[in-house]
């Protein structure tokens, strides 16, 4: 009997698709799934979080009440102004605003859960008048009123939990990793809405909107001064120019007075800032 082995043609047992092509298709598919599921989780988590009663939100925010700062003149002034702005906004009585003053040279301000608002010395120093400050506070109170902080936490918690299940990460600090203790991430829609709410409150409070847009000019100059490292306030905020335009349109539409004497800061304001 005669035995022989034929020469087997090459490539009959391997697929001819290039490995990189397979790689690209699979990675694109994976990314699409991740992005879509993150979006769905974020939307769902945000929706559910907006249904959390405010009393529960306050319970979550108890960490802030423990670190109650000593009552200083600057804090008193800021708190009084915030109370006036919230009164002008007709904020629900259980949404008590608590102002926290941070004596750091960071040009930042943010609102977080439980009606806590953080104002940094660095930003306050740059503001030209009380109206701009009232607008800043009004903007942050607007976030509180729209429940943006808790929605943001809900979104992040849902996304990080979902990704944890999907990708098997061992990071279990859900609340810790979602910015409960750091700055919230708000969407541009949330920012625009808070701008509007804040502006309406300031107009109510002073009877005019003079000096309000100074806030955005200050923010603009801050981001221009450090183009590579924009202040945190800008990370998700709409570009100041767009915001100024949006607000100007609203001012014209409502027929609000733009030209009026701005309210200056109290005489000791700069001393309070430099002393703290």
């Amino acid at each position: 009997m005669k035995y022989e082995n034929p020469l087997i043609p090459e490539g009959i047992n391997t697929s001819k698709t290039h490995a990189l092509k397979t790689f690209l298709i699979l990675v694109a598919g994976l990314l699409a799934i991740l992005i879509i599921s993150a979006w769905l989780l974020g939307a769902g988590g945000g929706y559910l979080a907006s249904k959390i009663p405010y009393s529960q939100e306050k319970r979550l925010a108890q960490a802030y009440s423990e670190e109650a700062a000593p009552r200083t003149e600057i804090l008193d002034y800021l708190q009084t102004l915030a109370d006036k702005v919230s009164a002008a906004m007709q904020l629900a009585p259980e949404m008590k605003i608590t102002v926290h003053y941070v004596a750091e040279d960071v040009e930042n301000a943010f609102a977080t859960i439980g009606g806590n608002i953080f104002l940094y010395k660095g930003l306050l120093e740059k503001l030209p008048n009380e109206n701009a400050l009232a607008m800043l506070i009004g903007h942050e109170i607007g976030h509180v009123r729209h429940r943006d902080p808790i929605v943001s936490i809900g979104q992040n918690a849902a996304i990080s939990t979902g990704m944890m299940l999907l990708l098997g990460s061992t990071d279990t600090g859900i609340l810790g990793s979602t910015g409960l203790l750091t700055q919230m991430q708000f969407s541009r829609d949330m920012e625009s809405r808070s701008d509007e709410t804040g502006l309406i409150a300031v107009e109510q409070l002073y009877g005019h909107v003079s000096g309000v847009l100074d806030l955005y000019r200050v923010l603009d100059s801050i981001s221009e001064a450090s183009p590579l490292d924009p202040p945190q306030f800008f990370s998700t905020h709409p570009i100041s120019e767009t915001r100024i335009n949006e607000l100007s349109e609203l001012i014209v539409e409502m027929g609000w007075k733009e030209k009026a004497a701005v309210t200056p800061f109290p005489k000791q304001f700069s001393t309070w800032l430099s002393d703290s």
Partner: protein
Amino acid sequence: MSFQILLFLLLLVLGYFIGSYLEKKHYRSIIKREAELNKLPAVASKILPAGAASFEQRLVLGNVTISVDYFKRFIATLHNFFGGSVTSYETLLDRARREALLRMKSEAKKLNAGLVMNVKYETASIYKGSGSGVGSVEVLAYGTAMIPKQAAV
């Protein structure tokens, strides 16, 4: 975090380039040796041919362990998620089978065998179950070498 991503991308790129270079090199060597050893047939039949009494029979083995590169393993992980044929492992197994057979044949050739009968393959996956560990495959080819008695070493 960014360091881990960079390391991952670096390993992926290195795995791709080094892996494909080594694979091409291996295939060249396989094709060359297959042509050389083609004169020595290896068959799966276990029925002895006529005149088998004049042959001495001896077991010949060829064993190889080949590992998969980082890039291919990553693609396989993605296939794990999406399903479909794990194309990135096809060349790995193809190379391993052919290399094992070649090693068995070259052992048979050293013994001056004229034919290898009853050829079989055994495969084993090394590091099985270790998840993200190195994925290697072992292939053992074995058969019965038929060595003409007067030529037996």
